[in-house]
């Protein structure tokens, strides 16, 4: 049947519209402020996830000028990897997390070597199609994993279900962990790009590949490392997201919402990805509460279209014109 794929997967696409935890307090007096703060916190923690996925896009885009449409699928694979290490290998939480990140980083390097490097220098559209294909393959292969792939799993995290109360405000520890990990990761990445030799080499390669080659920087090897880094970040995002949406094959579709985040921030800017993610997360969270039903799912896309019309280079993107 034509369109059978669309029909078969339409259900899955619907399923990815996860329910982000949100509380509906009584709309009376002081409760409005509490509701707003509650939405803000849930928006920020959601935004942090978008920011982490967007960070993956931006890292790869800056280094290789290719866009990885399979970033969401890398996240899904990372979450499944962590789950398998915890449930099958019975490793403690921290060990499983570190191992999953390392393994996915290796996968990222391998992917770059096998699939991306042969078509480096081809039009962007080519790589877009390639990574869409890789995403499909990852999802298809995952459903074939015996007794794992087709089900929804809960990731057993040590901080599951705990909440902190600040007066009327209820904050779940899961949300706090998301925010804290994002902040720490950003600080680490910033320090790496600012102070480490390899980070500075990556910056040089992303600014001008040819000049970096002439300076003796191994650009191709760096590209592999960037893919590994990006896959590692995606794994962290997946493991952070897992307590909210559970681990399932189609959790990668959330990656489609991280594109607006990356564009709003400016596609080539790392701080932009973080800010863009937060903007999209908060707007989505607010739209889900204050606007009629249906706006929550498309708020991110409306924002990105407006952004492209008003300021095509994003909040932090520089404008470069070709000199003829």
């Amino acid at each position: 049947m034509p369109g059978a794929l669309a029909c078969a997967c339409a259900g899955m696409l619907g399923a990815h519209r996860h329910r982000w935890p949100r509380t509906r307090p009584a709309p009376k007096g002081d409760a409005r402020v509490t509701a707003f703060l509650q939405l803000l916190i849930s928006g920020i923690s959601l935004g942090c996830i978008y920011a982490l996925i967007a960070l993956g896009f931006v890292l790869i885009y800056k280094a290789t000028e290719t866009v990885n449409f399979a970033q969401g699928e890398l996240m899904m694979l990372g979450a499944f990897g962590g789950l398998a290490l915890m449930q099958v290998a019975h490793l403690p939480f921290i060990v499983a997390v570190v191992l999953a990140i390392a393994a996915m980083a290796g996968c990222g390097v391998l992917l770059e070597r096998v699939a991306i490097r042969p078509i480096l220098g081809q039009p962007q559209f080519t790589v877009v199609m390639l990574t869409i294909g890789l995403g499909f393959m990852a999802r298809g292969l995952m459903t074939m994993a015996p007794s794992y792939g087709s089900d929804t799993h809960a990731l057993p995290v040590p901080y599951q279900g705990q909440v902190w109360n600040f007066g009327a405000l209820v904050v779940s520890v899961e949300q706090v962990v998301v925010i804290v990990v994002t902040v720490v990761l950003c600080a680490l990445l910033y320090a790496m790009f600012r102070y480490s030799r390899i980070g500075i080499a990556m910056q040089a390669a992303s600014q001008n590949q040819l000049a970096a080659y002439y300076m003796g920087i191994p650009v191709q090897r760096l590209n592999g490392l960037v893919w590994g880094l990006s896959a590692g970040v995606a794994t962290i995002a997946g493991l952070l997201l897992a307590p909210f949406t559970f681990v399932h094959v189609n959790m990668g579709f959330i990656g489609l919402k991280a594109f607006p985040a990356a564009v709003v921030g400016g596609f080539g800017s790392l701080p932009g990805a973080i800010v863009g993610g937060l903007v999209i997360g908060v707007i989505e969270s607010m739209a889900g509460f204050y606007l009629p039903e249906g706006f929550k799912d498309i708020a991110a896309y409306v924002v990105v279209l407006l952004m492209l019309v008003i300021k095509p280079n994003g909040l932090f993107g520089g404008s470069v014109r070709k000199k003829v």
Partner: protein
Amino acid sequence: VRFFFKTQYDQDIRLVKHGGQVFWYGLLAVALLLAPWSVGDYWMTQLSFILIYSIAGLGLMVLAGFTGLASLGHAAFLGVGAYTQAYLLSHGWPFVLTLPCAAALSAAVGVVVGLPALRVKGIYLAIATLAFGFIVEEVLARWESVTGGNSGRNVPGVSIFGWELGSGAGFYYVCLVVCALATLGVLNLLRSGTGRAFIAIRDSEISAQSMGIAIARYKTLAFAISAALTGAAGALYAHKLAFISPDQFGALQSIELLLVVVVGGVGSVHGAFLGAIFLIALPQFIAVSKDWLPPAIGQASGLQGLIYGAVLVGIVLFEPLGLYGRWLKMRTYLQLFPFYRRGLFKRQKAFTKSERLR
């Protein structure tokens, strides 16, 4: 080895290049016209779907293949066409009017989407069209008074001047006529000044601009033409399915349309047809092969996605010109028989070519 000596300037832009083409395309036309008498209902349905997807593929080919503007939200135009058709028909409009209306409304929407496209390019455009596709899907799901919402709506059958065509051979001829007109239209477009302007924009925007091509006008035009063709295909698609709901016009449908273009061969009119044939034939092939595979693989829900993905990756890595490129290589091999070189179609490597500066 055959040589075609060109003795007139006309020969460069003539629609039919030589007698061989008249013979083979004539044969194809006769075969397609006689198809209802020689194949069963099942194959009629498949042929109709191939024709419908070919029209949509032609639409996307004009945009992605010839103007160089990739669209990840083309299913939205398919949806606009389908719902316009269903809505107008249920309000008593005749089919001969609704089909052009579906195409025209789709083209109007295409112009609106084309507006941000004037300022953004490359990956930004892909994301803009992706976002647009999601928004249209949501609108189709929420605007219940017109679209019937998520529960979908029925599409009445085709009748032209009171003559009920049903869904079999009659509808097949409608598809065939629309498809033939679309193909001739696109071929004529491509050999006109407009089409050459599209190709110039694809190859280098700056060169095109300095040759006096109004980029904004031609990009908008490309979006409009592409959306109109896809909208017409959407109208026929609605008839063929007889029941439409918003999830048929989502992101995955957009990717299927891209698959048609990429697998067939970006930048060739033949490619749209080869890609459509491939897209319709692949599920049949998968259904057959399921019996031969071990159950863990054969029964997995993601098998189809895996194969689609693998085909896409394989085509991009090993045959960037798609099925049509493969055919070209085979033909050239035979034509030049002992003299074919392996490097004849080799793509050039350009490691440092940056698309940030285009």
